[in-house]
């Protein structure tokens, strides 16, 4: 007989007994007993104790920081420690004075540096997403059409770069794209060009960087939706005399649209707020909002203004997220 299930049950027994034993031992300590009794009396169950730690953690380190960002975005820059003015002040210990400073937001809309950075982020993210779709779709389609026994290995090959360092993958492109880099060397030696191309420190390098870094996010949902497709539909189309290209546009592509939407979403959203890629591959003229926020914070030390930049960026992101969620719900309803 196989004894694996028994050992597994043995381990579970030991663990649960240890948990109860620990609880019983702690019950000998009065404060623990009192708290435990109080919790039981007030109807707080073991379930609540399971919920509380992650809940409190997220409230403290995710939600509260946002409220603080929102608050500081209404403060004024000051040369002090920390470098912003207080929003609430008690005057004579009686009156609470609230000073809301809207200048940060005004500046964002008046100074064209900022709104151009927002627009440019959307533009660069949009173009990169479209190009990533152009690169990712054939790859996903080819993976689905490859022999079945290859599929798991191919899937692993797509996922593997995602596990390796993002920074290193971006860095790898500097050596390829720079003026004395490998790409120029190759093209010069092949005689395609006679002057080295300037690619590094331009928007083109940023597109390449985003496509390269986020390609797995595009390919995986596409692969998932293409794999689910019923092949007999294509066979039927071929039997009825439809050419493969036409069959692709009439059957394969429309059926893979949920995958297309998911892939585009997963590339577009992180690309908008991207910092590392435009900073390392882009030039001084490459305006992206993540870079602006970083510079505002680290170079100008203007915490209130960078908070306002963050708040507006969040508002900008909410639109595509809500649109995508509506689409997902519609797909689920179908």
């Amino acid at each position, binding site marked *: 007989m*196989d004894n694996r299930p028994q050992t597994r049950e043995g381990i579970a027994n030991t663990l*649960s007994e240890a948990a109860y034993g620990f609880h019983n031992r702690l019950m000998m300590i009065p404060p623990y007993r009192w708290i435990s009794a109080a919790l039981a009396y007030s109807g707080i169950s073991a379930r609540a104790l399971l919920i509380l*730690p992650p809940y409190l*953690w997220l409230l403290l380190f995710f939600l509260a920081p946002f409220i603080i960002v929102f608050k500081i975005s209404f403060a004024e820059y000051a040369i002090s420690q920390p470098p912003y003015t207080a929003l609430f002040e008690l005057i004579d210990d009686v009156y609470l004075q609230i000073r809301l400073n809207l200048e940060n937001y005004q500046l964002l809309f008046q100074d064209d540096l900022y709104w151009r950075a927002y627009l440019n982020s959307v533009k660069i993210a949009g173009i990169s997403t479209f190009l990533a779709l152009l690169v990712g779709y054939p790859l996903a389609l080819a993976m689905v059409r490859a022999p079945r026994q290859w599929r798991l290995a191919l899937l692993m090959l797509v996922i593997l770069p995602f596990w390796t360092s993002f*920074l290193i993958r971006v860095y790898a492109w500097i050596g390829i794209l720079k003026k004395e880099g490998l790409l120029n060397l190759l093209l010069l030696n092949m005689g395609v060009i006679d002057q080295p191309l300037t690619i590094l420190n331009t928007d083109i390098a940023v597109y390449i960087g985003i496509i390269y870094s986020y*390609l797995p996010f595009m390919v995986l949902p596409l692969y998932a939706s293409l794999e689910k497709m019923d092949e007999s539909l294509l066979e039927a189309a071929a039997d009825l005399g439809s050419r493969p290209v036409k069959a692709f546009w009439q059957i394969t592509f429309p059926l893979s649209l949920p995958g297309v939407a998911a892939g585009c979403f997963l590339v577009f959203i992180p690309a908008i707020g991207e910092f590392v890629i435009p900073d390392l591959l882009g030039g001084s003229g490459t305006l992206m909002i993540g870079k602006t926020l970083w510079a505002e914070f680290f170079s100008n030390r203007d915490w209130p203004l960078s908070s306002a930049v963050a708040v507006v960026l969040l508002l900008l992101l909410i639109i595509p997220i809500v649109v995508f969620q509506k689409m997902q719900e519609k797909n689920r309803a179908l």
Partner: protein
Amino acid sequence: MNKGLSWFTWSALILGFGFLYLPIILLVLFSFNESRLVTVWGGFSTKWYSELFNNQGLMNAAWVTLKVAFISSSAATLLGTMAGVILIRSGAFRGRTLFSGMIYAPLVMPEVITGLSLLLMFVAISLDRGFLTVTIAHITFSMCYVAVVVQSRLATFDHSIEEAAMDLGCPPAKTFFAVTLPIILPAVVSGWLLSFTLSLDDLVIASFTTGPGATTLPMKIYSQVRLGVTPEINAISTILVGLVAMGVLVASYISRRNEATRVLDERLAAAVES
């Protein structure tokens, strides 16, 4: 489809994977270059690796990064597993919508915003920036990834297995350890690995939340990369890529072996019954 692969499939696979892997292969290749220039091959050499291990600053940063990654991924796995189990098994409770919102939001949040908001939080509660604050920041975003991985694994399993165990008189804690945990264990393990690599990799959030004495490896690499491409960075990148590739291969080997033994178990059980 056994008609042989079309030219389209072949070229898409070769071009696609070439695009994905060529930059990394070139990076690894040039880490063994004798010459300091990245484009000129000056012969095979491992001198950049020995220089790396003599670089005290880099080694310190690597040690800090490993400590942060280990502590934060372990804590994130614990909190994230709890959160994932809650999302699927806890039914309705007050503030559930807020809870699931807080789990999913960090996944789409730009890193610059997460970093900035956590920093302002640490300043507001006057917590000195350093090792502790980086670790807290990493736990916060990693636990959401773990929660999502665990809940997607749990969602595909039938709740009735657990209910059956409880109906047969199994206490909740034992049900969790005997039934639920074995089911979600692969997800918990891959959640830990994911947190670990996310933490190893993070530049932006660490830059915001760190303080003196807690410079992480990505920050060190970043400040050197800004000065230009050097074979030393290629060498350290090669080591990191190699470690991660090995980890992923071992993990997938283990999970496939577990899968194989599970299938074998089921077949044996079926054979015994019949």
